[in-house]
């Protein structure tokens, strides 16, 4: 493990953390403001990826593809919110889980019906392909750096949105007392649709960005969704800051664990046993991290509510 490789992996961890942040931010906002747990968030991620792949395939433009991803997932989010989610705000969590699980089934099978079971491919645009030379002579893929930059930009924008705008004030007020802001004349249903669509758009963006690194296929969203849950448990529900910190922690732990554990075991075990033990434990590491945080802070690092 050379220092260069280590830095590369750290950057990978940050990049993976950034995409997780995009997923988790939407989820935690929706939960914080509307008190709703949404399992179909992974489907919105997938819709963004498919929209991007379809548009990129048709037009060849990555920029258009990203915009399509944002638009498609935000629109899907808005539609789903008005048709299904709206009926769930007053229901208990079990109903919310089941209904949004049902949505996963519908979206996954629907996408498979439309696009087939084979993965689609989304190409990294030429402008962002190839390596960039960082200080220290390290070469790192330009595209991944772009993802980190986009993630940071989104985090900063969300922070400004929440703290400086009218919408942000409503979001924060809504997190604290839903009935009160409704009584004060804020159009709750529109606020909810906007928040839900915003979260959906972020998920779709994440899906499109990752789609260029891995493939675009049905079912790609759920593993990321569950990781986003881990992020939220660690970071605390309703907190954007918690989502960022949690996402970076999870991203780093996952990436570095997979890279550092096998050689670590290699120090006192023989080759293949070390490799398999190392990678098996690495797969469990983030959950161990989550369990650890839970023992010490059951509401997450920045959380207050459940």
């Amino acid at each position, binding site marked *: 493990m050379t220092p260069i490789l280590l830095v590369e992996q750290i950057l990978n961890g940050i990049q993976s953390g950034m995409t997780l942040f995009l997923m988790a931010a939407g989820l935690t906002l929706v939960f914080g403001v509307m008190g709703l747990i949404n399992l179909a968030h992974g489907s919105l991620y997938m819709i963004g990826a498919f929209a991007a792949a379809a548009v990129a395939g048709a037009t060849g433009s990555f920029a258009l593809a990203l915009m399509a991803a944002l638009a498609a997932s935000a629109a899907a989010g808005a539609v789903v919110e008005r048709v299904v989610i709206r009926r769930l705000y007053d229901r208990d969590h079990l109903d919310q889980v089941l209904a949004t699980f049902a949505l996963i*089934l519908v979206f996954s099978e629907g996408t498979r019906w439309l696009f087939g079971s084979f993965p689609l491919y989304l190409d990294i645009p030429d402008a962002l392909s190839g390596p960039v030379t960082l200080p220290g002579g390290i070469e790192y893929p330009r595209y991944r750096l772009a993802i980190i930059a986009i993630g940071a930009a989104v985090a900063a924008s969300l922070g400004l949105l929440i703290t400086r705008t009218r919408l942000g004030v409503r979001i924060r007020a809504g997190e604290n007392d839903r009935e009160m802001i409704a009584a004060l004349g804020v159009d709750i249903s529109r606020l909810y649709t906007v928040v839900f669509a915003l979260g959906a758009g972020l998920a779709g963006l994440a899906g499109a960005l990752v789609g260029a690194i891995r493939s675009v296929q049905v079912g790609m969203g759920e593993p990321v969704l569950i990781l986003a849950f881990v992020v939220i448990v660690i970071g605390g529900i309703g907190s954007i800051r918690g989502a960022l910190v949690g996402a970076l922690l999870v991203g780093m732990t996952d990436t570095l664990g997979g890279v550092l554990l096998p050689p670590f075991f290699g120090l006192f075990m023989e080759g293949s046993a070390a490799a398999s033990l190392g990678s098996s434990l690495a797969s469990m590491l983030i959950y161990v991290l989550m369990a650890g945080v839970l023992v010490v802070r059951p509401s*997450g690092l920045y959380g207050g509510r459940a």
Partner: protein
Amino acid sequence: MTRETLVNIALALLLLAVPLWAYTADEPFIITLATRAAILALAGVGLNLALGTGGLVSFGHAAFFGVGGYAMGILASHAQGYVPLMEWPFTVEGTKSMPVIWLVAMLSAGLAALGIGALSLRTSGVYFIMITLAFGQMFYYFAISWPAYGGEDGLSIYVRNGFPGLNTLDPIQFFALAYALLMLALFAMGRLARAPFGLALNAARQSTERVETGGIGVYRLRLTAFAVSGVVTGLAGALFADLNRFVSPTMFSWQTSGEIMVFVILGGVGRLFGPVAGAMLFIVLEHMLGGVSEFWHIWLGAILLFVVLFARGGIVGALAGRADG
């Protein structure tokens, strides 16, 4: 005799009648379908204790299903390969005896449930759901990456395990085993629900404060329920692996967790025979709709959505009305 008891008897008889008919009509495939339904129902019976009575929305029960399945897989694969599980400090051989396998499966699943429950039950609400989901994933990824037992490809057991006095390869006899276990579990659950434990657990679902103020520690109550629920689902997992003679990480997947929850809900959450009705319906849908379209999950999703939004009581709720006191 209440309406619900009549419905329960009808369901039990239906699940028995179909394979018996298939036996006389020489349709072994139908017997296998019924066995599948019985085993999935058993998995649901386990979840129903935690979810229906306890109000614990565990979206990671596949963890226990998989632990039971892998208990069977590990024991049987060592037996069929004539390689002991371990040789130091004492020799532990594999086994192909079902009773032993079931015991190991139930114990391991129970331990897993105690561990996961002890951590998860310190939280509530949405956190609990997310954490149980996450722990299920943990088992899934571990099973994929641990190479000794097949990893992603899974593990095949060539010959079905044995039960003293029976020919377990005969579909109707294996069905009888699964059915008997299901009925035993339902009987036990019925007693549990009416006992002080069930009363307190059910009341805690409705008002934690009320039960705590009455002097009953709710954490311990729920942890016990969660562990028992894991034990039952684990037994179902061992049976399922035996039915298919195959165990793979899919048994740990979130989709499996979701499916188990779906049968419980479709059948009627909290109702004793809910999982039986739900599993039977699920098998019928899988078989019939699956034959028509490979995208039948869309229909499953639509039905589930409908039930959740408009028909909360599920099948048993629709047939038997409100639950009895």
